[in-house]
Structures are given as structure tokens and as C-alpha cells.
């Protein structure tokens, strides 16, 4: 029997354990070690010496393998991809040498008992496979981790083990096919349905006849199948799986990442005596004894350029996707003084910004610059290109989605009640005069924004309402008129109350005093400090919150006048109060208690307390609140997977923030409708971009459109219909008029009334769909 395994040098300690434990049972089996690294990387003297004394029968370096355009081929692969891709080549090479029975075994496997049944199996079959899973449980975590993530995503069979008999026709045929596929497609590219060498083997049952699936649970035990494989020891000290099958080999997957230990921890949480801990403890000690501390952190020579700089996955991907680069730089690891090398090319170009990635976003699609492929372009040149582009393409400020004011108004029952957050910072106050300069309002920031990349919608300029001033009552009248016409149910006013001191209260007071402003409303207490940076986090505090029991009482007394108002929004006669930052309240339970006591004693109704999902969030009921309201873009809306920063042609060299895809947000929301155990109100934003507040550092949700917004709103409205009773079917919109965060339903010059129209259309179509 010939065994081979494939490693980079940092895996040598693991391979040593594999070899030793295998030889304990099969001293006559030969083990080949395939090292995907450069021998020059192996410096520490003692380790080098030992390499000659290893238990391996042969040591093969990757440069001894026949690989066309080797350097270029290696460069296209990450280390994991590389170590798996060579398996096909070496298997074929062994077959060419006339070796008949061959096993591939992963280096992080250790053998615990005799493997001779494999010899018999190989006598009768061409291909031996071990599936990740042989059995299922209905445990949610197990479905998620083992069935979905482990198997459906990564492949049915675990390619930590493979047995081939090349004397049988199908064995040879498989090896040829597999080698070819791995040469061209051995990548972890989930979007394309690829996962290294492993996912390919899902095709074996279709393409080949002479395969055998090993269903003995003693083979390839690993954290992904422990759920269904119970380990025990018999009286003679033999490890058994499910009480009868000797443990043949265990796969210590995830040792270095810590994922393995995590899985074991999780698995042994309720059963501290399980033997799996002891097995991992042994492996850990063995690794240390085999030099893991000394060489386990080695970085592969192929993880770096010749000059020692790390190669990023982006560098590999771009290279992989561009034949022009492959032919230009056929020795991509090399650093040259005389010619331009790939490393220098990468540094001087900005290939990520060229939108050449495999899946360009819609927003970027329209804006690809004339490519400067392979040419040396310096940054000022690029900037000039971007600005020329902007000048030529962004002259007409009106979007194709622009909508005029309609004569219609909402004329159907609103199945959900839409509440829009309402910002009052559109009138000067002495405090803002002092902190930011005379006459400061939100418009001061809104108008200063400039685009940071092609396709970046800035500045947002108002439509019908103009740069309004809320001291003018007519503005508020018109806002309410528009909101009503398009189907908004009410406003949620930001309320700025700092230990008794009120700021920006004019609009709410004006609203409250004028009974003819006939529109439901509620308050959201913006209980964070005011700072230099508009973020409530930085040190330089302009005005701060004080949270004490006295202040809790003062606050509730202060807003009593609103809570009494018949226009105030209630759920089952309970006035709703939203708190923007629950994490700022030192004791939310206490605050809730004080407010409830007060309101009940004043016959205002037990308030319905809603926590905004902003910072440090948990089940609101655990702190005495009734419900939560989503607050995008906080929390899950900043998931890494929604990000497209690398795809934009950013013009500003100082730009330092993140660009997210609005389309991906909507897709994400539709794909993963979250239903927590506590009452939740969902929120959508029409667009979001705080460039005006943080020039060059703003977070952008690019590619927003009225259509996508409508989809988002529809998705969460449907959810609300299903999960809320009639009295509490509220859906929130962030926001009515957050102009400096690019989040406004109010008409602007680019889209006109399109977002309002989308809102009304959504309500109408939802009504029609439910009633036909």
C-alpha cells in the first residue's frame, strides 16, 4: 500500500503524527510526503537535519512535480487550494510509476487502529470514499453546521481520505479526470459551486461505477460527525465508535484555527467526561512534542513574494482572472530590478478599483472607467480620469427613476402603519451657533458633500420644500400633507433632552400646539451625548446625558404633555416611547419601572417601551422594555458580506470608510427574515450615506433605488402582517428627513417624489394582493 499526504512546512508536525501512528499498525506501508513549499524556506537547523530522519519513505517537493507554468499556477492558488490541487497530480504520477493501491490521507489525521480492512476493500473496488456524514440528527445546530455548511456547501465526501486501486479501470479513469479538474478548477469559490478538490468528488457516483462508500463509522471521525458517533473505550482499552466499531482514524480538523477546539467545547459542554477531550489533549501534546511550537507558525514560501511581502487573496484572484497578467508576469513571485514585476505592478496600479471583479455591482457597472490594464498609471492621473468622468456623466442630476408629484393619494386601507423618523435640526439654535457657527442647521452639512467615486450620489439637494426652516409653520403643514398623501401613518420625532435641558424642541412644540396639524406622532428619545463628531462615541462632548432615577422621573414628567395628546401613537392604549440608546441607560429596568409607575398614576396608560437596536443589543424584555425596533444601518446591516468597498473607483486618496451594497442589503433581508423571540418592529431606509457629516469618511449604501426600497419595505411589511396583531402592525422608515445621512422620503432634485411614490405603491399593491 502506498500512502501520501500533502502539506506546507508548518504542517510537518501533524504529518509526523500521521506517519508514526500509521506505521505503528502498518510498518510495511510506504508513506510519501508531498511538501508544497520551497526547501529554502526550511531554515531552522535542527529541523532541517531531522527532515532526513523522518518516518516518511519519500519526500517530494512541489518543484519536482510536472506542472505546466508552475509558478503562475501556484500563484493562482491560496495555500489550502494549493495543497489540495497537487493531490490529483501526484496521484497520477504514482499511477504512472505503476503503483496500484494508493491512499491519500490528510496530515491532520491520526490512526488509532489497524487499517487492513482497506486492503480488502481496495481489492474489490476502484475508489474508496468516506462521507462527512453517515447519519443525521434533527438538532438545529447540527443541521446548520454539519449538513448545510459542512456537507452541502463543502462536499458530500471528506477528501481527507481517498483510496484508489489503479489496477481497476475506473480507478485509473477517475485519477485522470480528477487531475485535469484540479489543475484548472481547484478553488474555494463558493459562488461558482467549487470547493477545492473535495466538491468535485460529489460527481463520483454519477461518473463512475466502481466506487465504495465506507459506512463503517470508525473511519474519518471528526467534529462534523461526532453528533452521531459516540466514542468509548472497552475493557482492553480500545477506542470504539458507537460501541462496536474500532476507531480507525480521527481527523483533527480545525486545530490551528481553534475551530476544532470550539467544536469540541461545544460538543462536550454537557458531558465533561467524554473521551473526545482526552483524544484532543493527546493530539495537542503530540504536536508540541513534534515541533509544533517551533515550526507550526511557519509561513509558506508561497504565501509571500520574493521580497517577503504577503500575497493577499485579492492579488491572487485578480491574477487568476486575468490572462493578460498571467502572460505578462509568468514568474509572479519574483521581484525584479530590471523589469516591472507583479508586486510593483500591484502597488502602482489599483486593480481592485477597476471593477474587474467577477461580479460587478449594478451601480458600478455603469461607471467602469476606460481601463488602464497593465499600464503604469499614477494616482493623480487616475483622479483626473475620475473627475473628468464625473463632469461628463453627472451633469444631468435627474435619475431615470425620477417621479413627479402625483395627483393621487392613498385610497386603500393601510395594512401596516408606516412611521417615519423625523429630524428637527432645521432651525438655528444658540447652542449650535456656538458650537458650529452662526446659523448652523442640518443644511450646513448637507450642502458641503462631494462625490467620492463615480456613481456616488452627492450632494442630495432638496426638491419642493427647499432648504426649509422649521420656524415656518407652513413647512410643517406641507410635510404632513405630503406624508398623508403618500400613506405615511405618523412621525417619530427625535427628542433631545439632556438632564432637563431641551434642544431643538421648537418643531415638536409647534406641532403639539397646533391642533390642526392633524397627524399621529410619537417620540424617540435621542439619549446620547452630543459630540464633535455626530456619533455619540467620541471624547469631545458638547452636551451630555445624565441618567439617574431623578432624571428618569423628570424626563417622563417632561413628556407628559405629549403623551396626553390624542394624536400620540399608542398600541392598545399604551403610548409608545422609543429609546435610541438603551446601552446608555445605567439601569433600564429601573427607568422602565419609574416611567411605568408615573404614567399609570397619571392615567396615561402603561407606556409601550421600545428599544432601538443600536448599540450592545439584547432581548429588550430582559431589561424591562416591551419591544425593539430595528435601526438600520446599525447592527446586522454592516455585515462584511454586504460590503463592496473594493469595487468602487474611489477618487479621494484619503477616503477611509466602507461602501455597502444597497441591493445586497435588500437581498440579505429577503433571504434571512429574522424573527427573534421578542416583539420586533422592522425598519427600512430609502438610502443611506453620511458623507455630509463625515467628509471622506462617510459610510455609503450605494446603488439604492426606489424599486429596491419598495422591495425592502414590502418584505418587512409582509413580515409585520404575519407576526404582529392588528394593533401593532407598525413599520418604521429611517427617515422622513435625515438629509445629512442621505436618508429622506422628502423629495429631492434627483429622484423627485420617487421614494414617496414607492411607499404609496407598496401600500397599494399590498392591499390589492391581499384582497384579490
Amino acid at each position, binding site marked *: 500500500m502506498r500512502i501520501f499526504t500533502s502539506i506546507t512546512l508548518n504542517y510537518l*508536525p501533524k504529518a509526523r503524527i500521521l506517519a508514526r501512528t500509521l506505521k505503528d499498525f502498518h510498518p510495511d506501508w510506504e508513506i510519501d510526503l508531498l511538501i508544497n513549499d520551497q526547501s529554502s524556506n526550511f531554515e531552522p537547523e*535542527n*529541523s532541517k537535519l*531531522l527532515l532526513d530522519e523522518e518516518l516518511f519513505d519519500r519526500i517530494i517537493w512541489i518543484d519536482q512535480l510536472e506542472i505546466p507554468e508552475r509558478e503562475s499556477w501556484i500563484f493562482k492558488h491560496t495555500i489550502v487550494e494549493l495543497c489540495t490541487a497537487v493531490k490529483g497530480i501526484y496521484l497520477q504520477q504514482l499511477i504512472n510509476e505503476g503503483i496500484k493501491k494508493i491512499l491519500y490521507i490528510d496530515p491532520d489525521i491520526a490512526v*488509532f*487502529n489497524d487499517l487492513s480492512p482497506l486492503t480488502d476493500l481496495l481489492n474489490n473496488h476502484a475508489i474508496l470514499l468516506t462521507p462527512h456524514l453517515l447519519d443525521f440528527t434533527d438538532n438545529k445546530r447540527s443541521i446548520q453546521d454539519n449538513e448545510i455548511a459542512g456537507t452541502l456547501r463543502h462536499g458530500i465526501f471528506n477528501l481527507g481520505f481517498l483510496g484508489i486501486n489503479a489496477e481497476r479501470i475506473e480507478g485509473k479513469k477517475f485519477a485522470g479526470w480528477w487531475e485535469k479538474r484540479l489543475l484548472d478548477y481547484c478553488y474555494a469559490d463558493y459562488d461558482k459551486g467549487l470547493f477545492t478538490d473535495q466538491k468535485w468528488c460529489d460527481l463520483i457516483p454519477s461518473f463512475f461505477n466502481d466506487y465504495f462508500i465506507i459506512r463503517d463509522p470508525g473511519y474519518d471521525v471528526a467534529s462534523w460527525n461526532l453528533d452521531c458517533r459516540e466514542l468509548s*473505550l472497552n*475493557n*482492553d*482499552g*480500545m*477506542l470504539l465508535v458507537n460501541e462496536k466499531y474500532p*476507531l480507525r482514524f480521527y481527523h483533527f480538523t480545525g*486545530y490551528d484555527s*481553534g475551530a*476544532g*477546539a*470550539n467544536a469540541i*467545547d461545544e460538543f*462536550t459542554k454537557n458531558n*465533561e*467526561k467524554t*473521551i473526545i*477531550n*482526552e483524544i*484532543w*489533549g*493527546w*493530539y*495537542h*501534546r503530540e504536536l*508540541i*512534542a*513534534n*515541533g509544533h*511550537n*517551533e515550526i507550526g507558525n511557519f509561513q509558506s514560501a508561497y504565501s509571500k513574494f520574493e521580497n517577503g511581502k*504577503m500575497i493577499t487573496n485579492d492579488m491572487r484572484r485578480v491574477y487568476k482572472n486575468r490572462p493578460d497578467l498571467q502572460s505578462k508576469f509568468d514568474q509572479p513571485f519574483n521581484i525584479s530590478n530590471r523589469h516591472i514585476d507583479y508586486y510593483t505592478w500591484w502597488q502602482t496600479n489599483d486593480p481592485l478599483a477597476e471593477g474587474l471583479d467577477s461580479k460587478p455591482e449594478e451601480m458600478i457597472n455603469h461607471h467602469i472607467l476606460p481601463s488602464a490594464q497593465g499600464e503604469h498609471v499614477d494616482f493623480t492621473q487616475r483622479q483626473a480620469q475620475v473627475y473628468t468622468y464625473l463632469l461628463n456623466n453627472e451633469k444631468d442630476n435627474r435619475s431615470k427613476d425620477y417621479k413627479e408629484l402625483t395627483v393621487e393619494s392613498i385610497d386603500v386601507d393601510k395594512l401596516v402603519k408606516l412611521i417615519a423618523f423625523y429630524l428637527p435640526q432645521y432651525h438655528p439654535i444658540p447652542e449650535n451657533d456656538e458650537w458650529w457657527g452662526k446659523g448652523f442647521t442640518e443644511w450646513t452639512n448637507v450642502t458641503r458633500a462631494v462625490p467620492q467615486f463615480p456613481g456616488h450620489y452627492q450632494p442630495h439637494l432638496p426638491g419642493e420644500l427647499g432648504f426649509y426652516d422649521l420656524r415656518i409653520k407652513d413647512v410643517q403643514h406641507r410635510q404632513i400633507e405630503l406624508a398623508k398623501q403618500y400613506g405615511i401613518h405618523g412621525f417619530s420625532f427625535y427628542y433631545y433632552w439632556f438632564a432637563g435641558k431641551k434642544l431643538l424642541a421648537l418643531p415638536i412644540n409647534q406641532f403639539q400646539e397646533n391642533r390642526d396639524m392633524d397627524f399621529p406622532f410619537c417620540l424617540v428619545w435621542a439619549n446620547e451625548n452630543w459630540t464633535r*463628531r*455626530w*456619533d*455619540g*462615541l*467620541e*471624547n469631545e462632548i458638547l452636551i451630555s446625558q445624565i441618567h439617574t432615577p431623578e432624571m428618569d422621573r423628570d424626563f417622563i414628567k417632561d413628556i407628559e404633555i405629549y403623551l396626553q395628546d390624542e394624536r400620540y401613537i399608542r398600541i392598545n392604549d399604551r403610548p409608545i416611547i422609543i429609546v435610541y440608546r438603551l*446601552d446608555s441607560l*445605567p439601569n433600564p429596568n429601573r427607568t422602565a419601572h419609574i416611567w411605568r409607575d408615573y404614567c399609570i398614576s397619571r392615567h396615561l396608560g402603561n407606556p409601550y417601551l421600545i428599544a432601538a437596536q443600536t*448599540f*450592545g443589543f439584547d432581548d429588550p424584555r430582559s431589561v424591562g422594555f416591551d419591544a425593539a425596533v430595528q435601526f438600520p*444601518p*446599525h447592527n446586522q446591516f*454592516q455585515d*462584511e458580506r454586504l460590503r463592496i468597498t473594493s469595487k468602487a473607483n474611489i477618487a479621494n486618496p484619503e477616503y477611509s*470608510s*466602507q461602501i455597502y451594497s444597497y441591493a445586497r442589503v435588500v437581498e440579505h433581508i429577503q433571504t434571512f427574515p429574522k424573527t427573534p423571540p421578542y416583539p420586533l418592529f422592522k425598519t427600512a431606509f430609502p438610502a443611506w450615506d*453620511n458623507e455630509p457629516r*463625515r467628509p471622506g*469618511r*462617510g*459610510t455609503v449604501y450605494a446603488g439604492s433605488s426606489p424599486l429596491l426600497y419598495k422591495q425592502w419595505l414590502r418584505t418587512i411589511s409582509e413580515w409585520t402582517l404575519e407576526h404582529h396583531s392588528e394593533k401593532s402592525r407598525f413599520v418604521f422608515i429611517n427617515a422622513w428627513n435625515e438629509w445629512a445621512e442621505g436618508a429622506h422620503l422628502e423629495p429631492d432634485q434627483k429622484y423627485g417624489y420617487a421614494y414617496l411614490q414607492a411607499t404609496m405603491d407598496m401600500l397599494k399593491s399590498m392591499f390589492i394582493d391581499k384582497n384579490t
Partner: protein
Amino acid sequence: MLLKNLYHYFLIVRSGLFDREFYLKNNPDVRAVDADPILHYIKWGWKENRDPSSNFDTSWYLETYEDIKNAGINPLIHFIKLGQSEGRIPNPTGKEKDKKSNDVINKDLSLNNPLAQQLKIQSESKSYGKKSRSNQAYIDESLLDIDKLIDKINKNRLFDKYMITISHDNYLKEVGGVQVKLLDRITQFKQNQMGDFHIYPTQRLFSLNHGDSPFFIDLLMDGNYIGTINSNDFVDIFSSQKIEISQIEIHHTMGFKMDFIIELLQHFESHTKLFWAHDFFSICPNYFLMRNDREYCNAPDVDSNACRICLYGELRHKHTNEFKHLFDSINMHVITPSEFALDFWKEKSGLKAEQYSVVPHTVLNWKEQNIPIISQKPIKIAYVGHPIYQKGWHTFKKLTETQNNNPDYRFFQFSNIEQKGNFEFIEIAVTKSNRFLMKEELSHHQIDIAILWSLCPETFSFTLYESLAAGCYIITNPYSGNIQNFLIDNPQRGLIAENEEALIQLFSSGKIIEAVKNYQNNGRPTADFVINNEKIV
């Protein structure tokens, strides 16, 4: 809404480089204000040189990478985003110290065992590919004066005949079963006009000494310390001084080089050689026979999976080879303190001796009159002996926790070391001059039940005899060796509970109350506890 901070927050969360518990533990002020530790670090912590985890040294990073310091940016964020890939290191050691530990062995248990600690230290001092650094204690040989030592021997010489006793420590200073037995033996010999040389390793080890450095022993003569000597010189003393050695007794070999013992025994070839198996050290260096200090292992073949995954398995290979060498080279007379121990030893050690004997350490003289004594409620239950895991301490503790507030029971701990819990502590410091203290105290407190829950086989168990003498009803489990064996032969004196659950069930259901009443109704036998000085040779 500082999105950059939020972004940093998520970066840090995802990096796994932030240890919330560590941060709160080291920054009580943060805990006091109930702040989110990550947010605190982002806002203030890094500027105040606080560390996000034991793996990342904030101040060191800033001092080392001046460019980061000058840039005034959060060093952890820099490390996550760029530093890592630039090959910068997070702390002076360059290693992530406490990354989710792969050493998932239950440390709490094996830390109890000094042998585990010794192995840990030895493996830490060993670097792969380098020769193991000797952990031999440093002894300045030039200070050892053999002539002076011989002088001292001659001055102290009282007898014509001597025996040599071998054990792991100074039996006069240390307290334990082996030491007590040695004292008894030596006293007995003195009465027969025979003196004693006692030797033990100068350096304390919890295994055999497998090293190749010079080996030193300490020498006692009739209880007096004579000196430290290189083991190579030891035999010469007797030839040069014409001291007659009539007998050699091995009571323990821990810490010895086996080669030395073999040479010694071969030198006195025609003498009687007793090998006392006080415990199962000749079967495995972890003489408790508990795999990874967790579970009784049944002493399987040293090549078994069980020994492979055991902390002591690798050492056991060398260890058992040394014992095989000893028994192959020397005709021994093996003595165990119980029939059970002898049978077990024969089966599991695989060693062959010339002769075998069973010599119990104590015998019980049962009193003739058994008076029915019915205890009042609550029934008194005691844990007897060292409160360690191997002896069932955890099980006892669990039992007391499950029976907390049960008015039927009152729990006691009779030990030398006090533990905290729902029980009363009775300090028992048995000394050589007060050998019967445990029995007396058990009687004095009118203990009804003794829980003797050894998780691994006892060769003898003094506490069994102490408890029996005090009239206690015994509860044990099927793995406790001689204790369980005694109850099989004398089922009326106690019962064997299948496992921990069954034990707790006995108490929860109240069945134990019935059992004890029956026992006491039939007369509660008590005994005198007598040291056994039976002659062996």
C-alpha cells in the same frame, strides 16, 4: 452614531483578539460602570495602554512600531487590518498565547497529580529535536565527602546486622501509609537486634528516574541522617566497612534509577529481597490507574488506545520496561497488603516473582458484645481521608450539594485538609504517635456512615479499617478494590452503589436510612484497631 467606531467594533469582534472576560478582570473600573469592554477599548482603553487580551500588548505594540504611535491610531485595529499581514507581531513573544486552547484535557483534575505537573515541566523544558534538558537537581559533588560519611557510619554503629530499606522519601519526616509501615518494620527489626540503612532519592521525582545524569541518594542509619552519596559509591561502603546486610526491602521505587536498584540487589545476591506493593506503581507510573486522572482505566495493555491518549501512557512504556528488567533480573518476594491486591497485581503487572505473601497492615479485634445503637436523626455521614478526586471527593461534594437542606442527614469531612461546603470539617492529623485518632474521632462523633468512594482500586485502605473499627456502615463503588472486596465478603457491613447517580439516589430516596437502621438494629459491631507485626521471614 460614529460608524467608524462601529466598524472597528465589528472588526475587533470578528478578529477574536478581544477577550471580554480578560478585559473586565483586569479593568475593574470598566466592570464597575458596566461598559461594553470593546467599546471602552475603542474609545479610551487603547489610549490608556490597556490590553484587549493577553495576546495583544497595547503599549508594547505602540513602543515597538513608532509609525503607529505617531499616527495616533488604535494599535489593535492596525494589527487586524494591516499589521498582521505586514508580519508585525502582537506581543513581545510573537505568539498568540491563549488562543482557544487545544489542550482540552481537564486541567483541574490532572493538576491534582504531581506527576502530571512533573511531565508538563519536563515537556516544556524540552525543545523538539534537542536533547531533553536534565531536570536533575544540582548537587555539588565536591562537597560530598565519602570518608566523613564512613566516619559517621562507624560512630553510629550499634548492631552487627543491618537491613537496607528503600523508599521514595524520608519515612520519619513524611506522613503516609508507606512511611508508617516502614517505621513499624524498622522498629520490629530493632527489637530483633537488627539495624537499618534507609535510602531515598535526593531529588524528589514522581516517576522513576529515567535520566542519564549521576544519581544521588540520601542515607539514614537507624533514623539518623548520615549524608548524601553518589549512588555508584553506595555498595562500596558495605564492602569496605564489612557491615553485614541480612535483608533488603523495597517499599517504593519512585524517584530511583532502576539500574541502581538492580545493581544493589545483585550485589547482595543471596539475601532476602522483599518487594512491598503498597500501591500499583509497578503497573503504571500513575499508580491510581486513572486514565488522564479522569476514569479508572483497568490497566490495559500499554500499547492500547487508552494508554496512547493518556497523559501517562508514553511514560508507562519506559516505566514498565524498567520493572520488567527488575523482575527478570532478581528473584523477588512480593508482598501485598490484601488478597485482592495480590490477585490484581499478578494479573495486571505481568511480572513474575519467586514468592508471594499477603500481609495486612492492620487487623481488627472485634468486640464480643454488639450493642444495638439506633442513631437519632439526622444520620451522620462522613467522608473519611484525603479530599482528592481519585478518592471520590467530588462525588461526596456532589452528594452533599444534592442533599442540602435535607434534615435527615448531617455531613462531615474527616481529613487533614479542610474543604468548604455543606458539611462540618473535623481535622484529623494522624501522626506516628497517634495512630488511632481517626477511629477515635469517628467513634466520638458517632458517625453512622463512612463514604469510601475511591475511584480506583485500593490495595488496602486504612480508612476502611478505621471506619469499620468505629462501627460505621460503609458505602463504596465497584472500583474501590479492597474496600469493595471486603463488602463482597461481608455484605452486612455496607453496600456497593453502582455509580454516582445510584449513590445520590440512595440518599434522595431515603433507602439508606432503612439500611443503616437494619445494620444498627442487629448490633453495631466495633473493633480495636491493631497494628499487624506478623513475621514474614
